[in-house]
């Protein structure tokens, strides 16, 4: 047993970690550059910042009274719950993470990466890291801007609400929810894009699954990104129509358990994606 552990640790130490770190760094840089600094990526900026623009206009044109803080708090909660989690981050991550591998297959450029001296697992994880950095950077920046623009026009009352009142916990929760949503949806869409030639129909099924998830048995609820995020929402907004499903409270779960559960889900999905990547073949003619 001790020998096994010893040989494992020796083999672990002998791996070219420095080289892998450099390769991963370069791959991430290439991918982030493409995700964030090209005209073709402008639609992700739109998805992330369109609520920010509307909140900015609201700050300019509407008069702000202290009594309005609770109304605006509900509006912000609705934006996070119904827009960012259900639409903005969902479609943003669908675009970013589906493109990482499947997009390169469609554009017939994946072979350049597979022909470089980089382990396929490192390639996949670097691409995932790049997608995550891009998505988190955009949506987290938008979230910070949303909070600032929503409560800024209330002046001292707004500042007090955000830094010393209930707004502090809410802001913290939103700033945790957004990256978790990006990572969670990112991992799912990366996997779907490796499993299907066209991952969008499967993604639409995921959208439907997420919608009906709250009324499913608790075991099935654990296979869902939105269900973990639901437990982290600081303000509950009753939805109308189909969105009402999202706000059905089932088994209460602590924030830590929800976050760890989601991270575990991401780890499982990434491990399986690495396995698929290892067996991936280049056959562009079938795309």
């Amino acid at each position, binding site marked *: 047993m001790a020998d096994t552990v010893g040989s494992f640790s020796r083999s672990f130490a002998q791996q*070219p970690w420095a*080289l892998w770190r*450099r*390769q991963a760094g*370069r*791959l991430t840089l*290439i991918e982030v550059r*493409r995700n964030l600094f*090209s005209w*073709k990526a402008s639609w992700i900026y739109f998805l992330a910042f369109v609520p920010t623009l509307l909140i900015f206009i609201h700050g300019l044109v509407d008069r702000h009274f202290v009594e309005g803080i609770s109304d605006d708090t509900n509006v912000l909660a609705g934006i996070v719950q119904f827009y960012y989690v259900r639409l903005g981050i969902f479609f943003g991550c669908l675009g970013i993470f589906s493109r990482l591998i499947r997009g*390169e297959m469609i*554009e*017939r*450029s994946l*072979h*350049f990466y*597979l*022909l*470089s*001296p*980089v*382990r*396929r697992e490192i390639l996949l994880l670097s691409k995932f890291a790049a997608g995550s950095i891009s998505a988190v950077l955009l949506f987290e920046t938008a979230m910070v801007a949303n909070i600032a623009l929503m409560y800024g026009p209330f002046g001292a009352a707004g500042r007090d609400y955000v830094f010393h009142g209930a707004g502090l916990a809410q802001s913290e929760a939103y700033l945790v929810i957004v990256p978790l949503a990006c990572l969670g949806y990112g991992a799912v869409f990366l996997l779907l894009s490796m499993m299907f030639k066209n991952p969008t129909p499967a993604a639409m099924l995921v959208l439907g699954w997420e919608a009906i998830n709250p009324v499913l048995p608790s075991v099935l609820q654990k296979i869902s990104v939105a269900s973990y995020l639901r437990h982290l929402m600081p303000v509950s907004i009753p939805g109308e129509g189909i969105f009402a499903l999202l706000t059905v409270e089932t088994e209460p779960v602590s924030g830590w358990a929800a976050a760890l559960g989601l991270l575990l889900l991401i780890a499982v999905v990434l491990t399986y994606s690495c396995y698929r990547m290892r*067996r991936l*073949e*280049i*056959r*562009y003619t079938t795309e």
Partner: protein
Amino acid sequence: MTDHATLHDRIQFENVSKFYGEVLGVNKVTLSIPPGVTTLVGPNGSGKTTLMNLMTGLVQASSGTISVLGLSPGNATEFFRAVGYCTQFDSFPRGLSGWQFVFDSLMLHGMDKMDAFRLTVEALDRVQLGDSAGWPIASYSKGMRQKIRLAQSIAHHPRVLILDEPLNGLDPMARAESLALFEELGRQGMHLIISSHILDEVDRISDRVVLITGGYLIAEGNIHQVRQEVRDKPMQVLIRCDHPELLASRMFSINHCVEARLHADGQGVFLRTGDIDQFYSMLNGIAAEGVIKINAVAPADDDANAIYQYLIGSDGSAS
């Protein structure tokens, strides 16, 4: 010891088969390719690209084993330091300039920026793309895209260079430059595996030929040896002399000479014979007589093109 050395110096295929579902890619291919320039010859869809993709791990063999200089594509870090592959896919990662394409690729080898910079300049100069390196690849002509792919595949100084249709889209000047580059690399001891349809041009630099059709290996080896082995096809020889008609009539007196055709300039004759050894022996006799002044003798169908015609045929089916 010898086996070990051979393994680390050759590209080996052992009983390799590849099936795409029910479609045959290649079937039971056993090959051992030494250093030098090797041409892969075969009609469209014969399995040339599959063979190259198998070599580099872009597709995985259904059965059999492949090693390149003793390395396996599964060990990407070691393998792709030794191997460069210029594919025929005319596509690139989105939004890159020629420079970024080559530089990024070198950085993935784990090089520092200075080395990557130096090798990028060197590779771009070698394919004569230095002036347009900063342009987006999307604005390149077809020939420039072919060149930048070549630059990327040679930039890291691989020991094995695999080139899938490297002359496609190049103008005659660029083709000549590329062939000169391949020849030079082959002379320096690099393994070059080239698949091309422009046989007469590749033939000039090629040491060996691998003929493949319908996924089956038809022949492999030195071009002259392969030609010699195709005994059922008469060999054609061009003889430059002052009296080609007389020579033709003399040679036709022997029964293994089956065809004679005058050269367009009237200063030579193409003769086709079923027994090349007897043919040369008789030619010696005629030359010794001194009646006909023979200036030059050269095989006219001892090349990849002729071998292709004889073994595969113009319709692509092996004869």
